[in-house]
């Protein structure tokens, strides 16, 4: 569509079909798609759009996406509901083992999972993260006395390896595949007769997509077994099964179109037929996600595409798009057009490094080079993960335990390790937090003692014990417990708003507690709870009135405290980087080569720092802030929660840890985050040296 011939190429287009539309519209991909549709509606007025979805919470909003929005009125496509699908049969694994308090591996149920695979023809085993997939696959092979054909499939494996698994599956040669959401959508492998979902379902619609992978015939029921990996996940599985039975959906509502995606589109338009601002603005408004776009935002985006959108007007002569004497914008030189075409798209992956298997060279001097290059390609791994490793560490990759040998350019060299225990990839959590809808159902389930009857005995006992020694939180209230342990004091609260929102809450709470002289040392968050620990006796301070919980949890933390934290937040910098790439400020690819972050001569973190200080209202910072509301920081959800619990905070002062607090307390030590303060980490590294020097 960015070519001069676009009107000719597309004018006769009759129909466009968008499958799994609900999954397309929740991201910037959907934003760009909607802008593409807006262009097609102009080029091919006769075109009809058809969207398909089996899991959508609000069909009306998807219907708006499919037709042009005019004069700020809500236009919508017709909705056709296809019936007749057999209801799925979903159960929770009734384990005879002891249910773990924390963790995400479901190791306790390994034998039972293996039995399920053995008893069925072909089973898909879904897990939430790549590292879980690696671990489970290893564990299953260790106990595979029957030599069942079990394979592994996830997004970071080498493509050739993945295709091999898919082929074997299609031919019916496999009994089981351990996989991540890389297989969620669209893969229809005939004869799967059982889906096992390990761990938290996270969302009702998400679970239904996975279940739909089994028995892909509309008139027969799909069968699925949910395997919760810990006690909280039992609650989540319980309410997810109820939601599936009611066919309740929880896909997120339609987004507001992102400004960085719009910037990419504007550049694309300038690469084709020249455009007038007024005309393009009118066209963009017909796209549902952008129907509320202000003219100011639009003009800022055009200014950004042209000269960077800086208050300091020094880049006029370097403009990427220029106006002719009729006011029409066109691309300034062919290189810009070429660069646009190479960088089109909105999927910004984490920087990935290629993993190659080489022979161990023993020692670990750690400097790069000197190691034999080449080696078999195992797949790709996130740079962020490798950065957390030290040369010599072992981890599981591609179903093998490997030792980290060296890093050179974008290649990670590993050797086969003989260790039985790997330093397993740390659990990064799935990308998706627990859905707001399931979270609410979990809170309702907790609040309704009669409903506890549907829970396994172990879980019921756990909750009863909690209500004896502390309290089981009510639907709208926030339970806050404080207690001493060792020589530290703990505050644990249970917002049930997902790990991302809890992390943000933890960052902000520790700032405030520091000001209140609670001397916080760290915090840890999981999907359900947040624990903060410190040196100050919080129970005592609350009793004395020196620490007021309603002040501590006041929504005003989303003002200055949030701003101050965002200034230095690594998550915010990652969000900014994504916007910088999508908007076209920074190219991902140059002609003929992939530009890795290692080759980039400037860092987006440094640009963020400078831009934030000198032009805080720049359009890219606005885009990044909008992303932070729903993305890695989940600020909107935190904000909703803080308003929900205002005036409803219940404090329990305890002598020791409560049953409900145990799971989150067990996560302490696995990861310990103190704000994002870095001097502590550096000081610790320096202390180690001092110790060594003194010994």
């Amino acid at each position, binding site marked *: 569509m960015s070519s001069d011939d676009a009107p000719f190429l597309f004018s006769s287009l009759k129909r466009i079909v968008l499958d799994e539309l609900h999954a397309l519209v929740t991201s910037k991909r959907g934003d760009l798609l909607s802008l593409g549709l807006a262009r097609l509606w102009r080029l091919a007025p006769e075109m009809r759009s058809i969207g398909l979805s089996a899991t959508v919470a609000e069909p009306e909003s998807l219907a708006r996406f499919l037709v042009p929005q005019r004069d700020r009125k809500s236009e919508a496509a017709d909705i056709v509901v296809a019936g007749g699908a057999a209801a799925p049969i979903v159960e929770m694994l009734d384990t005879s083992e002891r249910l773990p308090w924390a963790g995400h591996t479901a190791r306790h149920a390994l034998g039972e999972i293996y039995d399920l695979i053995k008893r069925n023809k072909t089973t898909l085993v879904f897990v939430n993260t790549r590292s879980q997939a690696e671990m489970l696959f290893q564990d299953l092979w260790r106990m595979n006395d029957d030599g069942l054909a079990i394979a592994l499939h996830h997004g970071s494996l080498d493509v050739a390896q993945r295709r091999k698994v898919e082929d074997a599956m299609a031919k019916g040669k496999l009994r089981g595949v351990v996989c991540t959401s890389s297989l969620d959508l669209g893969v229809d492998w005939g004869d799967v007769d059982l889906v096992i979902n390990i761990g938290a379902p996270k969302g009702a619609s998400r679970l239904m997509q996975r279940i739909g992978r089994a028995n892909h015939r509309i008139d027969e029921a799909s069968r699925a077994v949910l395997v919760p990996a810990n006690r909280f996940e039992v609650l989540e599985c319980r309410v997810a099964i109820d939601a599936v039975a009611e066919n309740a959906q929880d896909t997120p509502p339609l987004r507001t179109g992102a400004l960085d995606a719009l910037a990419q589109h504007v550049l694309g338009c300038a690469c084709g037929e020249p455009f007038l601002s007024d005309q393009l603005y009118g066209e963009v408004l017909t796209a549902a996600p952008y129907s509320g776009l202000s003219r100011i935002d639009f003009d800022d985006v055009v200014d950004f595409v042209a000269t*960077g959108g800086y208050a300091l007007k020094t880049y006029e002569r*370097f403009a990427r798009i220029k106006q002719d004497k009729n006011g029409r914008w066109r691309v300034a030189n062919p290189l810009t057009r070429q660069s646009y075409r190479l960088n089109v798209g909105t999927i910004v992956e984490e920087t990935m490094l290629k993993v190659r298997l080489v022979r161990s060279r023993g020692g670990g001097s750690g400097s790069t080079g000197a190691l034999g290059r080449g080696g078999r390609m195992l797949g790709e791994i996130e740079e962020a993960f490798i950065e957390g490793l030290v040369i010599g560490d072992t981890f599981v990759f591609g179903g093998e335990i490997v030792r980290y040998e060296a890093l050179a350019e974008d290649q990670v060299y590993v050797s086969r390790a003989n260790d039985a225990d790997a330093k397993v990839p740390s659990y990064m959590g799935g990308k998706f937090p627990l859905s707001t809808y399931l979270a609410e159902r979990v809170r309702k389930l907790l609040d309704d003692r009669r409903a506890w009857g549907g829970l396994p005995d172990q879980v019921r006992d756990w909750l009863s014990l909690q209500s004896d020694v502390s309290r089981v939180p009510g639907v709208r209230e926030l339970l806050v417990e404080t207690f001493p342990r060792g020589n530290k004091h703990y505050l644990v609260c249970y917002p049930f708003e997902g790990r991302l929102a809890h992390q943000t809450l933890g960052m902000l709470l520790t700032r405030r507690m520091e000001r209140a002289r609670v001397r916080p040392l760290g915090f840890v968050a999981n999907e359900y709870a947040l624990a903060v620990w410190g040196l100050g006796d919080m129970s005592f301070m609350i009793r004395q009135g020196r620490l007021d919980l309603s002040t501590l949890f006041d929504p005003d933390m989303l003002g200055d405290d949030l701003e101050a934290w965002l200034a230095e937040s690594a998550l915010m910098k990652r969000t900014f980087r994504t916007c910088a790439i999508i908007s076209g400020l*920074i190219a991902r690819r140059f002609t003929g080569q992939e530009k890795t972050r290692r080759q980039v001569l400037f860092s987006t973190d440094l640009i963020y720092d400078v831009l934030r200080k000198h032009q805080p209202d720049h359009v890219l910072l606005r885009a990044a802030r909008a992303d932070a509301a729903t993305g890695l920081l989940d600020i909107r959800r935190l904000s909703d929660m803080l308003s929900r619990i205002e005036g409803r905070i219940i404090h329990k002062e305890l002598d020791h840890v409560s049953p409900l607090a145990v799971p989150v307390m067990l996560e302490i030590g696995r*990861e310990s985050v103190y704000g994002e303060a*870095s001097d502590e980490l550096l000081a610790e590294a*320096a202390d180690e040296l001092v110790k060594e*020097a003194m010994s």
Partner: protein
Amino acid sequence: MTRTAIEIGRHSSLNIAGVQLIADLSGALFWQEQSLLVVSDLHLEKGSSFATRGVLLPPYDTVATLGRLAAVIARHDPRMVIALGDSFHDRDAHGRLSAPDRDTIAALQARRDWIWISGNHDPALPSDLGGVVAHEVAIGPIAFRHEPTGAIGEIAGHLHPKARVTRRGRSMERRCFACDGERAVMPAFGAYTGGLSIRDAAFSKIFQTLGFMAHVLGDTRLHSIAASRCY
């Protein structure tokens, strides 16, 4: 191991070939007896340098870098300043300086000696910038030059040393001074300057062994960490 650094918060004291110097948290080096301040790799106008190639980075890097330079000069009030090379990102960069930025540089040069050491990015500096242009400068046992050679008593830049420290699965990367008591490589001072890991082969040519220290620029203090513990 001899102690080559003492932690004193905002500054670390570095001993190079018998001379005591102060490593400033900003990334500058101060030689008290000589009242000499050294900064390296300012890379002024790096933003506009990218802009000429269609990458429209925010045009605020020069003002940001000069602002930090003004702050550290105000703190130490040196009689002499040495800019240790790559002060400008490319050959034409000085021509793109805005008038206010030129004025800032002139104001910083007032009442003190100013030496521009030429670097690979700015091999030919014009005379209208103020200050003196030199290839290298020797004061007592210390030689100041842009590209390190590994000679004893050398203070150089060019490599943009940074250190990665990993603790409990989290890792952090910061600019640092690299110093083994005989020679030092200074961190890049510019707002848009990235870095090269001190574990890169380029550093082993300067320091021979890993027995050198990284003086890492933290948020509020400098941290002295053995190079062997960094990545």
